[in-house]
């Protein structure tokens, strides 16, 4: 039997439970229901392009971009350090990245509040060393912090996986040819780890754009983000049609940006998360 057939159970599963639901969403986004009347319409999409919703979209993308960049800046070095650690510690260090996610999301976020609030632990500490209380809670910084905290593992894991795969002989060769450590990193390690970086960016960016709980809890609900908007449509307003349209637009935007990023990926095999 050809090995490619191994993918068919998966294909079957995903067709039923992932593709079919997606068609449902598409169907909702293209229809309307007004009392007893219902029919096909583009109005849900048109409505999304009203300035107020566009502003929500821009704000979400902006916050998600900032979080993604910070995740990358924080995550790459740590992935690099871990990949260079000796094999005994390596696995433990990586596992330690996943374990915090076993504590329920809501509990973790509440714990952050205890840390960040006006009379919170962080401020007590800062005041005691004379740095004065900082106003972090309920600002955009708190939202970004929440996103970075929750999505950092998704940046570190793929970069780490790629880094440990890099053929050491390439780096040795560069060294033999006279490149110093920095040049070797820029010319050899960094380009080779690019697939990991790209998957990391996608894995962090996607959930950051659509998250709603983080902005509501840490941002004090001051701003509606696209995730909140979608949730409101489905749950509070019951306008599944508009909610579906927003998520289809989101999906298209993400797919396009992934496509663009993919151009930097030499391994042209569609997107490559890990």
């Amino acid at each position, binding site marked *: 039997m050809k090995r490619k057939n191994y993918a068919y159970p998966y294909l079957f599963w995903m067709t039923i439970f992932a593709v079919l639901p997606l068609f449902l969403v598409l169907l909702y986004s293209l229809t309307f229901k007004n009392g007893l009347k219902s029919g096909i319409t583009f109005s849900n999409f048109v409505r999304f392009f009203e300035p107020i919703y566009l502003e929500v979209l821009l704000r979400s993308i902006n916050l998600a971009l900032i979080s993604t960049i910070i995740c990358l800046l924080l995550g790459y070095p740590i992935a690099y350090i871990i990949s260079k650690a000796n094999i005994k510690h390596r696995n433990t260090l990586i596992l330690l990245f996943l374990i915090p996610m076993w504590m329920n999301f809501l509990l973790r976020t509440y714990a952050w509040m205890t840390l960040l609030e006006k009379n919170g632990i962080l401020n007590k500490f800062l005041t005691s060393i004379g740095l004065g209380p900082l106003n972090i809670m309920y600002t955009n910084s708190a939202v970004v912090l929440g996103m970075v905290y929750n999505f950092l593992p998704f940046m570190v894991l793929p970069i780490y996986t790629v880094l440990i795969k890099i053929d050491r002989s390439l780096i040795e060769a560069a060294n033999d040819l006279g490149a110093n450590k920095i040049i070797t990193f820029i010319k050899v390690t960094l380009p080779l780890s690019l697939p990991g970086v790209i998957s990391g960016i996608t894995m962090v960016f996607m959930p950051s754009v659509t998250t709603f709980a983080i902005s509501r809890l840490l941002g004090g609900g001051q701003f509606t983000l696209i995730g909140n908007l979608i949730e409101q449509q489905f749950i509070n307003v019951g306008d599944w049609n508009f909610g579906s349209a927003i998520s289809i637009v989101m999906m298209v935007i*993400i797919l396009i940006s992934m496509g663009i990023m993919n151009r930097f990926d030499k391994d042209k095999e569609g997107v490559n998360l890990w």
Partner: protein
Amino acid sequence: MVNKVLKRVYTALIYFFLYAPIIILIVFSFNESKSRGSFTGFTFKWYSMLFKDRQIMRAMYYTLLVAVIASAVSTFLGTLAAIGIHNMHRRQKKILLNITYLPVLNPDIVTAISLMVLFIALNLKLGLFTMIISHITFCLPYVVLSVLPKLKQLNPNIYEAALDLGATPSYALRKVIIPEIMPGIISGALLAFTLSVDDFVISFFTTGSGVSNLSITIYSMARRGIKPEINALSTLLFLTVLILLLLINKITNKEEREMSLIEKNK
């Protein structure tokens, strides 16, 4: 030397960032007061009350049950799928990879509601089974995506060599390919388990008939204030997992060290 110290400090800071809220949670599981507003005194009472709380204990049971089944099935299906995808032609590969991204791309709430509508259309009664199916669905892509790169890294010649030496394809698969991609499978399984434990939105909308997991229990408690027993439970869970993983890691490390020794001696 400076470099090394810098690395150490940086690593310590990152892990401190990851674990600061966890420490807070653990501390507050011993807090006398029900509120997280202030620490009023040390107590073990939440731990003893925890085991008497029927609802929490049942939720705990369902959480683990669903996570184990979902991660096992998705690891199995996902690994097979990754092997299949790896051996496909470019076009087919691209289609399958794109399908793989669908659940990752959709906001949770959309996945949740569309799955719920689908189950009802299929005339499935919402409950444990539908919840497991949903969890498998959102875990699968992560497994596929963690196994695939390991396959890419695999030297195609070793499989051919095994066949040349008379192994049947399935024997070669079990004895040659699977062991080689094991790290990818393990990390996929771990990720699947983690995601399953932490999910609320999809679980909520795809369950029914009295089945609910810890996330649902915790979120629904929010209006009235989350019971401190939950902090106690999380602390226990966390410590168990930490100890377990460190133990497992010690064992696998030993094996890996031996393996690397063998490799070096080659």
